[in-house]
Protein backbone atom coordinates (compact mmCIF):
# COMPACT_ATOMS: atom_id res chain seq x y z
CA UNK A 1 0.00 0.00 0.00
CA UNK A 2 2.78 2.39 0.93
CA UNK A 3 4.63 1.73 -2.31
CA UNK A 4 1.46 2.33 -4.31
CA UNK A 5 1.00 5.71 -2.63
CA UNK A 6 4.63 6.51 -3.27
CA UNK A 7 4.27 5.64 -6.94
CA UNK A 8 1.25 7.90 -7.12
CA UNK A 9 3.14 10.77 -5.53
CA UNK A 10 6.03 10.26 -7.93
CA UNK A 11 3.71 10.24 -10.91
CA UNK A 12 1.97 13.36 -9.65
CA UNK A 13 5.29 15.14 -9.21
CA UNK A 14 6.40 14.39 -12.76
CA UNK A 15 3.09 15.26 -14.32
CA UNK A 16 2.59 18.41 -12.28
CA UNK A 17 6.00 19.65 -13.35
CA UNK A 18 5.12 18.91 -16.95
CA UNK A 19 1.79 20.66 -16.69
CA UNK A 20 3.30 23.70 -15.01
CA UNK A 21 4.54 24.90 -18.37
CA UNK A 22 1.85 26.75 -20.28
CA UNK A 23 0.86 25.78 -23.80
CA UNK A 24 1.59 22.12 -23.24
CA UNK A 25 0.72 19.67 -25.93
CA UNK A 26 -2.52 17.96 -24.97
CA UNK A 27 -2.14 14.26 -24.44
CA UNK A 28 -2.44 12.37 -27.67
CA UNK A 29 -5.58 10.32 -27.96
CA UNK A 30 -7.24 12.12 -25.06
CA UNK A 31 -10.64 13.06 -26.48
CA UNK A 32 -11.48 15.55 -23.75
CA UNK A 33 -8.43 17.67 -24.45
CA UNK A 34 -9.49 18.16 -28.03
CA UNK A 35 -12.43 20.38 -27.08
CA UNK A 36 -9.90 23.16 -27.29
CA UNK A 37 -9.81 22.92 -31.04
CA UNK A 38 -13.53 23.52 -31.41
CA UNK A 39 -14.79 27.03 -32.08
CA UNK A 40 -17.42 26.63 -29.41
CA UNK A 41 -18.45 24.13 -26.78
CA UNK A 42 -22.02 23.80 -25.70
CA UNK A 43 -23.54 21.72 -22.95
CA UNK A 44 -27.21 21.44 -22.16
CA UNK A 45 -28.80 19.07 -19.71
CA UNK A 46 -31.32 18.86 -16.93
CA UNK A 47 -30.15 18.01 -13.47
CA UNK A 48 -31.94 17.44 -10.20
CA UNK A 49 -30.67 19.48 -7.29
CA UNK A 50 -31.68 18.13 -3.90
CA UNK A 51 -32.92 20.35 -1.10
CA UNK A 52 -30.19 22.36 0.64
CA UNK A 53 -27.64 21.10 -1.89
CA UNK A 54 -25.50 22.83 -4.46
CA UNK A 55 -24.30 21.57 -7.81
CA UNK A 56 -21.18 23.09 -9.30
CA UNK A 57 -19.67 22.77 -12.74
CA UNK A 58 -16.17 23.87 -13.62
CA UNK A 59 -14.76 24.70 -17.02
CA UNK A 60 -11.36 25.89 -18.13
CA UNK A 61 -11.67 28.91 -20.38
CA UNK A 62 -9.11 30.90 -22.33
CA UNK A 63 -8.88 34.66 -22.77
CA UNK A 64 -11.23 36.24 -25.27
CA UNK A 65 -13.90 33.59 -24.90
CA UNK A 66 -17.53 34.33 -24.22
CA UNK A 67 -19.32 32.32 -21.55
CA UNK A 68 -23.11 32.24 -21.82
CA UNK A 69 -25.06 30.45 -19.09
CA UNK A 70 -28.83 30.05 -19.25
CA UNK A 71 -30.88 28.13 -16.74
CA UNK A 72 -34.51 27.39 -16.03
CA UNK A 73 -36.23 25.60 -13.17
CA UNK A 74 -38.53 23.09 -14.83
CA UNK A 75 -40.24 21.40 -11.93
CA UNK A 76 -40.06 20.94 -8.21
CA UNK A 77 -40.57 17.76 -6.27
CA UNK A 78 -43.61 19.15 -4.51
CA UNK A 79 -46.12 21.10 -6.54
CA UNK A 80 -46.97 24.62 -5.62
CA UNK A 81 -43.62 25.34 -4.03
CA UNK A 82 -41.48 28.17 -5.23
CA UNK A 83 -39.34 27.48 -8.24
CA UNK A 84 -36.46 29.71 -7.12
CA UNK A 85 -32.81 28.85 -7.38
CA UNK A 86 -29.56 30.75 -6.93
CA UNK A 87 -26.86 31.00 -9.56
CA UNK A 88 -23.25 31.92 -8.79
CA UNK A 89 -20.38 32.39 -11.25
CA UNK A 90 -16.86 32.34 -9.80
CA UNK A 91 -13.60 33.24 -11.48
CA UNK A 92 -10.26 31.43 -11.49
CA UNK A 93 -9.22 32.72 -8.05
CA UNK A 94 -12.59 31.89 -6.52
CA UNK A 95 -13.83 35.46 -6.58
CA UNK A 96 -17.55 35.89 -7.18
CA UNK A 97 -18.24 37.37 -10.58
CA UNK A 98 -22.01 37.22 -10.69
CA UNK A 99 -24.81 36.15 -8.41
CA UNK A 100 -28.46 35.78 -9.38
CA UNK A 101 -30.54 34.94 -6.32
CA UNK A 102 -34.00 33.53 -6.06
CA UNK A 103 -35.00 33.54 -9.71
CA UNK A 104 -36.94 30.93 -11.60
CA UNK A 105 -34.89 31.43 -14.74
CA UNK A 106 -31.96 33.52 -15.77
CA UNK A 107 -29.16 34.08 -18.22
CA UNK A 108 -25.74 35.65 -18.05
CA UNK A 109 -23.17 36.39 -20.73
CA UNK A 110 -19.63 37.53 -20.03
CA UNK A 111 -16.43 37.92 -22.01
CA UNK A 112 -13.42 36.41 -20.31
CA UNK A 113 -10.36 38.51 -19.69
CA UNK A 114 -8.54 36.05 -17.48
CA UNK A 115 -7.73 32.54 -18.34
CA UNK A 116 -8.48 29.82 -15.83
CA UNK A 117 -11.12 27.58 -14.39
CA UNK A 118 -14.52 29.21 -14.08
CA UNK A 119 -17.12 27.72 -11.74
CA UNK A 120 -20.88 27.84 -12.26
CA UNK A 121 -22.88 26.86 -9.19
CA UNK A 122 -26.59 26.32 -8.72
CA UNK A 123 -27.65 26.57 -5.11
CA UNK A 124 -30.89 25.12 -3.75
CA UNK A 125 -30.03 26.07 -0.20
CA UNK A 126 -33.14 28.19 0.22
CA UNK A 127 -35.53 25.25 0.20
CA UNK A 128 -35.57 22.81 3.04
CA UNK A 129 -37.43 19.92 1.45
CA UNK A 130 -37.98 20.61 -2.21
CA UNK A 131 -35.72 19.13 -4.86
CA UNK A 132 -35.71 20.96 -8.16
CA UNK A 133 -35.15 19.96 -11.75
CA UNK A 134 -33.05 22.64 -13.41
CA UNK A 135 -32.38 22.91 -17.13
CA UNK A 136 -28.88 24.31 -17.69
CA UNK A 137 -27.27 25.51 -20.91
CA UNK A 138 -23.61 26.47 -20.95
CA UNK A 139 -22.17 27.80 -24.21
CA UNK A 140 -18.56 28.89 -24.50
CA UNK A 141 -17.37 30.51 -27.70
CA UNK A 142 -13.64 30.09 -27.91
CA UNK A 143 -12.18 32.49 -30.36
CA UNK A 144 -9.25 33.64 -28.36
CA UNK A 145 -6.83 31.58 -30.42
CA UNK A 146 -8.33 32.71 -33.70
CA UNK A 147 -8.14 36.36 -32.68
CA UNK A 148 -4.50 35.91 -31.75
CA UNK A 149 -3.92 34.35 -35.14
CA UNK A 150 -5.54 37.31 -36.93
CA UNK A 151 -3.44 39.76 -34.94
CA UNK A 152 -0.36 37.77 -35.78
CA UNK A 153 -1.25 37.66 -39.47
CA UNK A 154 -2.07 41.35 -39.59
CA UNK A 155 1.17 42.12 -37.81
CA UNK A 156 3.09 40.06 -40.33
CA UNK A 157 1.41 41.72 -43.30
CA UNK A 158 2.19 45.17 -41.93
CA UNK A 159 5.74 44.20 -41.19
CA UNK A 160 6.15 42.95 -44.71
CA UNK A 161 4.60 46.08 -46.16
CA UNK A 162 6.95 48.22 -44.19
CA UNK A 163 9.92 46.10 -45.11
CA UNK A 164 9.33 45.63 -48.80
CA UNK A 165 7.15 48.58 -49.72
CA UNK A 166 5.71 46.57 -52.53
CA UNK A 167 2.24 46.67 -53.87
CA UNK A 168 0.33 43.75 -52.43
CA UNK A 169 -0.67 41.12 -54.87
CA UNK A 170 -4.34 40.66 -55.54
CA UNK A 171 -4.28 37.38 -53.66
CA UNK A 172 -3.04 39.01 -50.48
CA UNK A 173 -5.73 41.66 -50.61
CA UNK A 174 -8.39 39.06 -51.13
CA UNK A 175 -7.08 36.90 -48.31
CA UNK A 176 -6.84 39.89 -45.99
CA UNK A 177 -10.40 41.03 -46.59
CA UNK A 178 -11.57 37.43 -46.41
CA UNK A 179 -10.28 37.16 -42.88
CA UNK A 180 -12.32 40.21 -41.90
CA UNK A 181 -15.39 38.85 -43.63
CA UNK A 182 -14.98 35.50 -41.94
CA UNK A 183 -14.82 37.28 -38.60
CA UNK A 184 -18.06 39.09 -39.36
CA UNK A 185 -19.75 35.86 -40.37
CA UNK A 186 -18.44 34.18 -37.24
CA UNK A 187 -19.90 36.96 -35.08
CA UNK A 188 -23.27 36.60 -36.76
CA UNK A 189 -23.20 32.84 -36.32
CA UNK A 190 -22.40 33.32 -32.64
CA UNK A 191 -25.46 35.56 -32.30
CA UNK A 192 -27.55 32.88 -34.00
CA UNK A 193 -26.28 30.26 -31.60
CA UNK A 194 -27.10 32.39 -28.57
CA UNK A 195 -30.59 33.10 -29.88
CA UNK A 196 -31.17 29.40 -30.49
CA UNK A 197 -30.00 28.60 -27.00
CA UNK A 198 -32.55 31.06 -25.60
CA UNK A 199 -35.34 29.72 -27.77
CA UNK A 200 -34.56 26.17 -26.79
CA UNK A 201 -34.75 27.01 -23.12
CA UNK A 202 -38.13 28.73 -23.53
CA UNK A 203 -39.41 25.89 -25.68
CA UNK A 204 -38.52 23.30 -23.06
CA UNK A 205 -40.15 25.34 -20.32
CA UNK A 206 -43.34 25.72 -22.36
CA UNK A 207 -43.32 22.01 -23.15
CA UNK A 208 -43.24 21.14 -19.47
CA UNK A 209 -46.14 23.52 -18.82
CA UNK A 210 -48.26 22.07 -21.58
CA UNK A 211 -47.64 18.48 -20.50
CA UNK A 212 -48.61 19.33 -16.93
CA UNK A 213 -51.78 21.09 -18.11
CA UNK A 214 -52.75 18.06 -20.11
CA UNK A 215 -52.51 15.67 -17.20
CA UNK A 216 -54.07 18.09 -14.70
CA UNK A 217 -57.18 18.47 -16.88
CA UNK A 218 -57.64 14.71 -17.03
CA UNK A 219 -57.04 14.10 -13.34
CA UNK A 220 -59.31 16.87 -12.13
CA UNK A 221 -62.13 15.89 -14.48
CA UNK A 222 -62.11 12.32 -13.23
CA UNK A 223 -62.08 13.49 -9.63
CA UNK A 224 -64.95 15.87 -10.32
CA UNK A 225 -67.08 13.15 -11.89
CA UNK A 226 -66.52 10.93 -8.88
CA UNK A 227 -67.43 13.82 -6.58
CA UNK A 228 -70.68 14.47 -8.48
CA UNK A 229 -71.77 10.85 -8.29
CA UNK A 230 -70.77 10.51 -4.66
CA UNK A 231 -72.56 13.73 -3.71
CA UNK A 232 -75.85 12.70 -5.30
CA UNK A 233 -75.73 9.23 -3.76
CA UNK A 234 -74.99 10.73 -0.38
CA UNK A 235 -77.85 13.23 -0.80
CA UNK A 236 -80.35 10.52 -1.68
CA UNK A 237 -79.53 8.30 1.21
CA UNK A 238 -79.45 11.17 3.67
CA UNK A 239 -82.92 12.27 2.65
CA UNK A 240 -84.10 8.69 2.98
CA UNK A 241 -82.65 8.49 6.44
CA UNK A 242 -84.67 11.54 7.49
CA UNK A 243 -87.81 9.52 6.95
CA UNK A 244 -86.65 6.55 9.00
CA UNK A 245 -89.02 6.78 11.92
CA UNK A 246 -88.29 4.40 14.70
CA UNK A 247 -91.24 2.15 15.40
CA UNK A 248 -90.43 2.16 19.10
CA UNK A 249 -90.47 5.26 21.35
CA UNK A 250 -87.49 6.15 23.53
CA UNK A 251 -89.16 4.36 26.46
CA UNK A 252 -89.52 1.16 24.44
CA UNK A 253 -93.27 1.43 23.90
CA UNK A 254 -94.71 0.85 20.41
CA UNK A 255 -95.44 4.07 18.52
CA UNK A 256 -98.70 4.80 16.72
Amino acid at each position, binding site marked *: MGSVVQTY*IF*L*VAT*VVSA*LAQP*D*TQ*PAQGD*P*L*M*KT*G*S*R*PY*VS*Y*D*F*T*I*QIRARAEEC*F*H*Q*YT*SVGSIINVEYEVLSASSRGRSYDIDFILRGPTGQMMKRISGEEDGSYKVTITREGVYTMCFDNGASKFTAK*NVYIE*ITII*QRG*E*WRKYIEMQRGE*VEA*EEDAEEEVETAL*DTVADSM*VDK*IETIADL*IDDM*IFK*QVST*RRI*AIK*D*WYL*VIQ*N*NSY*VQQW*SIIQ*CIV*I*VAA*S*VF*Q*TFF*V*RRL*FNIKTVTPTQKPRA
Partner: protein
Amino acid sequence: MLIKGTVFFHGTVNVQALYFHIGETERKCFIEEIPDETMVIGNYKTQLFDKNVNDYLPSSPGVGMHVEVKDPDGKLLLSKVYSSEGRFTFTSHTPGEHVICLYSNSTKWSMFAGGKLRVHLDIQVGEHANDYQTIAEKDKLTELQLRVRQLLDQVEQITKEQNYQRYREERFRQTSESTNQRVLWWSIAQTLILTLTGFWQMRHLKGFFEAKKLV
Protein backbone atom coordinates in the same frame (compact mmCIF):
# COMPACT_ATOMS: atom_id res chain seq x y z
CA MET B 1 1.87 35.31 -47.23
CA LEU B 2 -1.39 34.86 -45.42
CA ILE B 3 -2.29 31.48 -46.76
CA LYS B 4 0.37 29.63 -44.90
CA GLY B 5 0.33 26.09 -43.71
CA THR B 6 1.26 27.02 -40.18
CA VAL B 7 0.22 24.63 -37.53
CA PHE B 8 -1.49 27.03 -35.23
CA PHE B 9 -4.43 25.29 -33.62
CA HIS B 10 -2.33 22.35 -32.60
CA GLY B 11 -0.58 22.20 -29.31
CA THR B 12 -2.44 25.18 -27.90
CA VAL B 13 -3.89 25.81 -24.51
CA ASN B 14 -4.64 22.82 -22.35
CA VAL B 15 -8.41 23.04 -22.55
CA GLN B 16 -10.50 20.54 -20.74
CA ALA B 17 -14.18 19.68 -20.70
CA LEU B 18 -16.71 20.58 -18.04
CA TYR B 19 -15.98 18.87 -14.74
CA PHE B 20 -17.71 18.37 -11.43
CA HIS B 21 -17.13 16.53 -8.17
CA ILE B 22 -18.83 13.38 -7.10
CA GLY B 23 -18.95 11.72 -3.72
CA GLU B 24 -18.30 8.08 -3.08
CA THR B 25 -21.80 6.69 -3.17
CA GLU B 26 -23.22 9.69 -4.97
CA ARG B 27 -25.08 9.22 -8.18
CA LYS B 28 -25.15 12.09 -10.62
CA CYS B 29 -27.85 12.01 -13.23
CA PHE B 30 -28.12 14.20 -16.29
CA ILE B 31 -31.37 14.44 -18.20
CA GLU B 32 -30.88 15.14 -21.90
CA GLU B 33 -33.52 15.72 -24.50
CA ILE B 34 -32.48 13.68 -27.50
CA PRO B 35 -34.21 13.23 -30.88
CA ASP B 36 -34.73 9.72 -32.19
CA GLU B 37 -32.16 7.69 -34.09
CA THR B 38 -29.32 9.83 -32.81
CA MET B 39 -25.95 8.65 -31.65
CA VAL B 40 -24.78 10.11 -28.37
CA ILE B 41 -21.10 10.05 -27.45
CA GLY B 42 -19.98 10.64 -23.90
CA ASN B 43 -16.32 11.22 -23.10
CA TYR B 44 -15.31 11.18 -19.49
CA LYS B 45 -12.25 11.14 -17.32
CA THR B 46 -11.95 10.73 -13.58
CA GLN B 47 -9.34 12.16 -11.28
CA LEU B 48 -8.73 11.18 -7.69
CA PHE B 49 -8.04 13.77 -5.04
CA ASP B 50 -4.76 13.12 -3.31
CA LYS B 51 -4.60 14.47 0.23
CA ASN B 52 -0.81 14.42 0.24
CA VAL B 53 -0.48 16.77 -2.70
CA ASN B 54 -3.81 18.49 -2.01
CA ASP B 55 -4.60 18.33 -5.68
CA TYR B 56 -6.11 16.02 -8.16
CA LEU B 57 -4.03 13.29 -9.71
CA PRO B 58 -3.88 13.39 -13.50
CA SER B 59 -5.28 9.90 -13.80
CA SER B 60 -6.74 7.37 -11.44
CA PRO B 61 -6.49 3.79 -12.58
CA GLY B 62 -8.55 1.34 -10.67
CA VAL B 63 -11.55 3.57 -10.28
CA GLY B 64 -14.45 2.30 -12.34
CA MET B 65 -17.39 4.38 -13.46
CA HIS B 66 -20.79 2.79 -13.76
CA VAL B 67 -22.77 4.37 -16.58
CA GLU B 68 -26.51 3.85 -16.82
CA VAL B 69 -28.73 5.27 -19.56
CA LYS B 70 -32.52 5.11 -19.49
CA ASP B 71 -34.77 6.05 -22.39
CA PRO B 72 -37.99 8.12 -22.04
CA ASP B 73 -40.05 5.00 -21.31
CA GLY B 74 -37.76 3.99 -18.47
CA LYS B 75 -36.13 1.16 -20.38
CA LEU B 76 -32.44 0.62 -19.76
CA LEU B 77 -30.41 1.43 -22.87
CA LEU B 78 -26.95 1.08 -21.44
CA SER B 79 -25.65 -0.23 -18.15
CA LYS B 80 -21.96 -0.89 -18.13
CA VAL B 81 -18.97 -0.41 -15.92
CA TYR B 82 -16.16 1.45 -17.63
CA SER B 83 -12.59 2.10 -16.55
CA SER B 84 -11.50 5.36 -15.02
CA GLU B 85 -11.50 7.15 -18.35
CA GLY B 86 -12.97 6.48 -21.72
CA ARG B 87 -16.08 6.97 -23.74
CA PHE B 88 -19.53 5.49 -23.93
CA THR B 89 -21.95 5.65 -26.84
CA PHE B 90 -25.57 4.79 -27.30
CA THR B 91 -28.18 5.39 -29.95
CA SER B 92 -31.62 6.66 -29.05
CA HIS B 93 -34.65 5.00 -30.61
CA THR B 94 -37.40 7.22 -29.26
CA PRO B 95 -37.26 10.99 -28.96
CA GLY B 96 -37.55 12.46 -25.51
CA GLU B 97 -35.82 12.74 -22.18
CA HIS B 98 -33.03 10.28 -21.62
CA VAL B 99 -31.42 9.96 -18.20
CA ILE B 100 -27.67 9.41 -18.07
CA CYS B 101 -26.48 8.40 -14.61
CA LEU B 102 -22.90 8.12 -13.44
CA TYR B 103 -21.63 6.65 -10.23
CA SER B 104 -18.46 5.11 -9.03
CA ASN B 105 -18.43 1.38 -8.51
CA SER B 106 -15.62 1.08 -6.03
CA THR B 107 -15.37 2.04 -2.41
CA LYS B 108 -11.64 1.60 -2.13
CA TRP B 109 -10.65 5.04 -3.28
CA SER B 110 -12.11 6.90 -0.35
CA MET B 111 -9.17 5.78 1.74
CA PHE B 112 -6.69 8.07 0.13
CA ALA B 113 -8.92 10.32 -1.84
CA GLY B 114 -10.58 12.32 0.89
CA GLY B 115 -13.96 11.26 -0.48
CA LYS B 116 -13.87 13.35 -3.65
CA LEU B 117 -13.62 12.34 -7.25
CA ARG B 118 -13.35 14.81 -10.10
CA VAL B 119 -15.20 13.74 -13.22
CA HIS B 120 -14.68 15.45 -16.57
CA LEU B 121 -17.65 14.89 -18.78
CA ASP B 122 -18.45 15.82 -22.33
CA ILE B 123 -21.74 14.55 -23.71
CA GLN B 124 -22.20 15.29 -27.38
CA VAL B 125 -25.47 14.64 -29.11
CA GLY B 126 -25.35 13.90 -32.79
CA GLU B 127 -22.14 14.09 -34.71
CA HIS B 128 -20.80 17.52 -34.11
CA ALA B 129 -18.00 16.31 -31.86
CA ASN B 130 -15.58 17.17 -34.57
CA ASP B 131 -11.93 17.00 -33.84
CA TYR B 132 -10.49 19.70 -35.99
CA GLN B 133 -6.92 18.76 -35.35
CA THR B 134 -7.24 15.40 -37.02
CA ILE B 135 -9.45 16.85 -39.77
CA ALA B 136 -6.84 19.48 -40.55
CA GLU B 137 -4.11 16.88 -40.63
CA LYS B 138 -6.09 14.44 -42.71
CA ASP B 139 -7.28 16.92 -45.33
CA LYS B 140 -4.13 19.03 -45.18
CA LEU B 141 -6.01 22.26 -44.60
CA THR B 142 -4.50 25.65 -44.03
CA GLU B 143 -5.71 27.77 -41.13
CA LEU B 144 -8.11 29.73 -43.30
CA GLN B 145 -9.58 26.59 -44.82
CA LEU B 146 -9.94 25.08 -41.38
CA ARG B 147 -11.77 28.17 -40.15
CA VAL B 148 -14.16 28.08 -43.07
CA ARG B 149 -14.75 24.40 -42.44
CA GLN B 150 -15.54 25.17 -38.80
CA LEU B 151 -18.03 27.84 -39.83
CA LEU B 152 -19.70 25.47 -42.28
CA ASP B 153 -20.07 22.87 -39.53
CA GLN B 154 -21.54 25.45 -37.19
CA VAL B 155 -24.10 26.51 -39.75
CA GLU B 156 -25.01 22.86 -40.29
CA GLN B 157 -25.51 22.50 -36.55
CA ILE B 158 -27.80 25.51 -36.54
CA THR B 159 -29.87 23.93 -39.31
CA LYS B 160 -30.17 20.65 -37.41
CA GLU B 161 -31.25 22.51 -34.32
CA GLN B 162 -33.89 24.35 -36.31
CA ASN B 163 -35.25 21.06 -37.62
CA TYR B 164 -35.44 19.72 -34.12
CA GLN B 165 -37.15 22.93 -33.02
CA ARG B 166 -39.77 22.42 -35.70
CA TYR B 167 -40.36 18.89 -34.43
CA ARG B 168 -40.70 20.26 -30.89
CA GLU B 169 -43.27 22.81 -32.02
CA GLU B 170 -45.29 20.12 -33.73
CA ARG B 171 -45.27 17.97 -30.60
CA PHE B 172 -46.21 21.02 -28.57
CA ARG B 173 -49.14 21.79 -30.82
CA GLN B 174 -50.34 18.18 -30.64
CA THR B 175 -50.32 18.26 -26.86
CA SER B 176 -52.16 21.59 -26.80
CA GLU B 177 -54.80 20.25 -29.15
CA SER B 178 -55.16 17.15 -27.02
CA THR B 179 -55.69 19.32 -23.94
CA ASN B 180 -58.28 21.31 -25.85
CA GLN B 181 -60.12 18.12 -26.81
CA ARG B 182 -59.96 16.78 -23.29
CA VAL B 183 -61.45 19.96 -21.83
CA LEU B 184 -64.31 19.75 -24.31
CA TRP B 185 -65.12 16.08 -23.83
CA TRP B 186 -64.79 16.08 -20.06
CA SER B 187 -67.15 19.08 -19.81
CA ILE B 188 -69.76 17.29 -21.88
CA ALA B 189 -69.24 14.12 -19.84
CA GLN B 190 -69.60 15.98 -16.56
CA THR B 191 -72.80 17.70 -17.65
CA LEU B 192 -74.18 14.34 -18.75
CA ILE B 193 -73.24 12.65 -15.49
CA LEU B 194 -74.78 15.52 -13.55
CA THR B 195 -78.08 15.29 -15.44
CA LEU B 196 -78.20 11.50 -15.20
CA THR B 197 -77.54 11.43 -11.48
CA GLY B 198 -80.18 14.13 -11.05
CA PHE B 199 -82.74 11.98 -12.87
CA TRP B 200 -81.76 8.92 -10.93
CA GLN B 201 -82.10 10.83 -7.66
CA MET B 202 -85.58 12.12 -8.49
CA ARG B 203 -86.77 8.73 -9.62
CA HIS B 204 -85.38 6.98 -6.59
CA LEU B 205 -86.88 9.46 -4.13
CA LYS B 206 -90.23 9.42 -5.93
CA GLY B 207 -90.33 5.67 -5.65
CA PHE B 208 -89.31 5.93 -2.01
CA PHE B 209 -92.01 8.43 -1.13
CA GLU B 210 -94.67 6.44 -2.98
CA ALA B 211 -93.62 3.36 -1.04
CA LYS B 212 -93.89 5.29 2.20
CA LYS B 213 -97.36 6.43 1.10
CA LEU B 214 -96.46 10.10 1.57
CA VAL B 215 -97.33 11.15 -2.00
